[in-house]
């Protein structure tokens, strides 16, 4: 370090306010429905009103004659178009893959299954014409419950899937070995634990705009997409059979996704096909009620768990049998969620010597189920955190001590849980637990709880803990890609960092935001590492034209994988700049110091070449070292060596009305360890939002189907996502255990809140009434369920 060279203040770690916001707070954002093209027509979708039916015939003649109608299309018209692919065929499901066709052909498997479409001059006209399409259905018996669907005599959805089973998958030790451990345990507990079905509810519904250019033969698709490169690949090569280079996919500003915009949906290839068929650009933007019926949903597990423990609360055995409801067809990565991302995470942050997990994936007459914020890990965390409380209840050991006694210890990392997950990268679980208990005032709360229970005063108090670990930064390709187990492709990320002649920096990345603030975070990183002003860094993303291939944004992987690709590209640029500086300063590259955007010869800080000088020199190119190519840029395709494993402890305190079961969350404390943090403002925001979603699963949300497959909670009038008045203040703190996996030491923060919050809240509510003998209550923990638990106990 030399005092003479001024090093700009580091931005990493600072709460920089987001550069995305000016357009979004002024109404100047550009979302899918804002895309307007000359001559654009609008698509409306006729959907199955039946959970399960054969289509005997469709008459579109009347609809075709309606005002403004450009065309009416059914599955018959798209017979030659391939079904959508299922990319992640975990559990060796090859023999019974049933994915949706672009439009249903011959049968429908859930209410909302797209049967026909109208393309018209306006959406109003397209909707009018839907009423004039006549479909002759033969209604079939339906089944919506995953366990019931596997029983003899249940309605069969697909010929190639007897008992509606998608796959039988298992991990961990042999069942017999775990049975023996259970038999030998001091204490045995078993419970049926449900993880109800959720609807993602990104505030922006999904949509697509397709344009076919007859002159060039090129297609452009605008889509609400978390993964435009993947959507191009799947649309081109798997569905339409169009050469991949002829399709360009653009994700405009995306209004939230939470997983639901990862997958390929019927409308993406369809609007392109329709644009070619009609000669008009075609827009589809689903209504919220359509979103409820057909955009992929999340969770929906029924699990029977058997637990063995010692008298002092050490968990010795865990046997898990889960039915995972995957809906009427397989969505893009559906089988991977209840297997790799759930089954292999059920150990949580605990050393459990004997684990066996069985997962049965099942077709039912419901909307497809796929990744939803957390994707598998919330189900796993909910299970093991309920297990901890069940053990506490059975042994009389304090729930905090059960967790403490079972924690994987700091010296154990990297730690292999023995159930097929990659080794946990780093961790130190007890300080987060201690800090959370201290913040919430655990001992005082226990006293107050005991007092109110004893004297009947006030509302009942419940305290719920959740010490979670999750897997982020997915994933090493050789692990996640393994056919039959993984998803048959990589999960690396890419970035190009280009310093222009003027010294301005353009980063193109395959990673993209839908609310996470990539443009800000990535620019902070580049500004620091390259020593350029923050405002000189432009982050470009979301368009397959002009960005290198990327797998998309999910699994809390943008910074850890996408960010590392940028980090490494900057390092390459810096290295080239050093070589060039050495040439210009007539020194050996080994003697060049590069800091704060300036290069100089060690010991001579007065003669500097700034990164801008070097960019200019690199571009004009007349004075370069022998063999050096002009320009200053580098590309990296980064395949992570491991995943990252954020962790922490959340504590929730609830008060329960003894007479009505009405409950209020009175405290919510979250101590998270997401490794090093680039932008604390953004990370806290991710945690807040995650907690709200996790809390909402515990208290409010749940998709309910009736016996014939109708979605009873089909609008926002019945399905409760939280309002501002329905969530508490979140009290946050952090511990910092850097990840050794990536150079930033980051672990990921996008899903942690959701994963942690559901068990914390549920455990709190159940704890509030546990003195009455209540062991478990199914989510959502509505006042009625809590009241009934109190009164039936």
């Amino acid at each position, binding site marked *: 370090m030399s005092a003479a060279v001024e090093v700009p203040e580091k931005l990493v770690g600072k709460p920089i306010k987001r550069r995305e916001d000016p357009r979004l707070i002024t109404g*100047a954002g550009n979302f899918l429905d804002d895309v307007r093209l000359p001559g654009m027509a609008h698509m409306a979708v006729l959907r199955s009103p039946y959970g399960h039916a054969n289509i005997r015939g469709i008459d579109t003649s009347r609809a075709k004659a309606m005002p403004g109608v450009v065309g009416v299309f059914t599955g018959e018209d798209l017979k030659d178009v391939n079904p959508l692919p299922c990319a992640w065929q975990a559990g060796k499901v090859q023999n019974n893959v049933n994915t949706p066709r672009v439009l249903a052909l011959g049968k429908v498997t859930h209410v909302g299954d797209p049967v026909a479409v109208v393309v018209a001059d306006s959406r109003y006209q397209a909707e009018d014409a839907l009423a004039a399409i006549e479909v002759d259905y033969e209604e079939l018996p339906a089944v919506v419950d995953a366990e019931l669907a596997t029983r003899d005599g249940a309605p069969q959805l697909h010929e190639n899937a007897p008992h509606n089973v998608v796959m039988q998958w298992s991990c961990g030790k042999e069942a017999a070995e775990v049975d023996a451990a259970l038999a030998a345990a001091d204490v045995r507990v078993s419970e049926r634990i449900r993880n109800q079905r959720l609807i993602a509810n990104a505030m922006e519904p999904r949509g697509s705009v397709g344009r076919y250019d007859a002159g060039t033969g090129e297609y452009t698709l605008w889509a609400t997409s978390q993964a435009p490169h993947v959507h191009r690949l799947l649309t081109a090569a798997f569905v339409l059979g169009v050469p991949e280079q002829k399709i360009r996919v653009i994700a405009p500003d995306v209004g939230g996704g939470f997983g639901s915009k990862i997958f390929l949906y019927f409308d993406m290839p369809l609007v392109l096909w329709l644009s070619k068929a009609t000669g008009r650009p075609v827009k589809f933007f689903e209504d919220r009620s359509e979103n409820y019926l057909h955009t992929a949903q999340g969770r929906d597990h029924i699990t029977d768990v058997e637990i063995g423990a010692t008298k002092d609360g050490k968990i010795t055995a865990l046997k898990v049998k889960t039915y995972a409801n995957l809906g009427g067809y397989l969505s893009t990565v559906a089988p991977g969620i209840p297997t790799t991302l759930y089954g292999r995470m059920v150990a949580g942050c605990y050393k459990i010597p004997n684990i066996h997990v069985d997962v049965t994936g099942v077709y039912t007459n419901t909307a497809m189920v796929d990744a939803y914020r957390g994707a598998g890990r919330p189900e796993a965390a909910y299970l093991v955190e309920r297990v901890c409380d069940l053990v506490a209840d059975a042994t009389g050991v304090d729930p905090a001590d059960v967790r403490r006694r079972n924690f994987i210890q700091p010296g154990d990392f990297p730690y292999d849980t023995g159930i097929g997950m990659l080794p946990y990268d780093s961790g130190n679980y007890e300080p987060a637990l201690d800090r959370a208990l201290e913040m919430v005032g655990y001992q005082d709360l226990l006293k107050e709880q005991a007092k109110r229970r004893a004297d009947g005063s006030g509302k009942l108090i419940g305290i719920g803990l959740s010490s979670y670990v999750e897997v982020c930064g997915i994933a090493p390709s050789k692990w996640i890609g393994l056919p039959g187990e993984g998803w048959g492709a990589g999960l690396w990320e890419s970035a190009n960092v280009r310093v222009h002649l003027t010294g301005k920096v353009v980063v193109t990345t395959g990673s993209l935001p839908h609310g996470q603030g990539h443009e800000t975070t990535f620019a902070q990183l580049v500004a620091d590492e390259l020593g350029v002003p923050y405002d000189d860094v432009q982050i470009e993303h979301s368009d397959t034209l002009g960005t290198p291939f990327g797998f998309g944004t999910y699994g809390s992987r943008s910074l850890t994988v996408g960010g590392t690709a940028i980090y490494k590209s900057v390092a390459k640029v810096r290295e080239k700049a050093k070589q060039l500086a050495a040439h210009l300063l007539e020194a050996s590259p080994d003697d060049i110091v590069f800091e704060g955007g300036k290069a100089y010869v060690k010991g001579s800080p007065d003669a500097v070449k700034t990164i801008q000088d070097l960019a200019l020199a690199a571009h004009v190119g007349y004075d370069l070292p022998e063999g050096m190519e002009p320009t200053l840029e580098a590309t990296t395709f980064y395949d992570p060596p491991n995943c990252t494993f954020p962790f922490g402890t959340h504590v929730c305190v609830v008060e329960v009305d003894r007479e009505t079961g009405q409950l209020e969350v009175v*405290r919510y404390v979250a101590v998270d360890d997401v490794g090093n943090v680039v932008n604390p403002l953004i990370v806290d925001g991710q945690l807040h*939002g995650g907690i709200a979603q996790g809390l909402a699963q515990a208290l409010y949300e749940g998709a309910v189907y009736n016996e014939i497959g109708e979605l009873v909670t089909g609008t926002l009038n019945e399905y409760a996502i939280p309002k501002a008045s329905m969530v508490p203040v979140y009290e946050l703190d952090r511990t910092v255990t850097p990840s050794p996996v990536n150079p930033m030491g980051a672990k990921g923060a996008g899903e942690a809140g959701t994963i942690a919050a559901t068990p914390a809240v549920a455990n709190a509510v159940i704890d509030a009434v546990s003195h009455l003998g209540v062991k478990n209550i199914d989510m959502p923990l509505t006042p009625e369920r809590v009241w009934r638990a109190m009164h039936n106990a």
Partner: protein
Amino acid sequence: MANTVTAPAKVAVQMTVNGTEYSAEVEPRLLLVHFLRDNLGLTGTHVGCDTSQCGACVVDVNGASVKSCTVLAVQADGAEVTTIEGVAKDGEYDPVQRGFWEMHGLQCGYCTPGMIMSARALLRRNPNPSEDEIRHGLEGNLCRCTGYQNIVRAVTYAAGEINGTGGAESVAAWEQRVAGQAS
């Protein structure tokens, strides 16, 4: 019952939107939100649901915040309408916009225009709202990203700017109250 044999007569509407007067002939069924977005190209007002819950479409009509998906364009005939595009004046953000930027009151930004419009209406009625009043006053607006805490902070910030106690100061005071309740 679709009654589409003869299309109903179009109706003339005239309204002032963000200070500019517009007139058009529209179908009676055209929703105000579609008139703003499709006829006038003011796409900052969003559609997030079809049951009048989410509030992404909130605009001011004659000084009152309304859900423009639940108002017919013809009902707004003769009205003064303000949309998110009309909030900043001469390139200067409104205090609520500043609050949302400063306090990270948005992530994906889809609910944000409606949220800002509702927050402005809330502060017009009550320039010094408590946290409960903010949460209650925003019940007509759903946000799926933020968990609302930073929206509460954003509105608290804006209130501070409007009522003279200062944006950052008001948020700091709120945070102190929260910490006080916690301990």
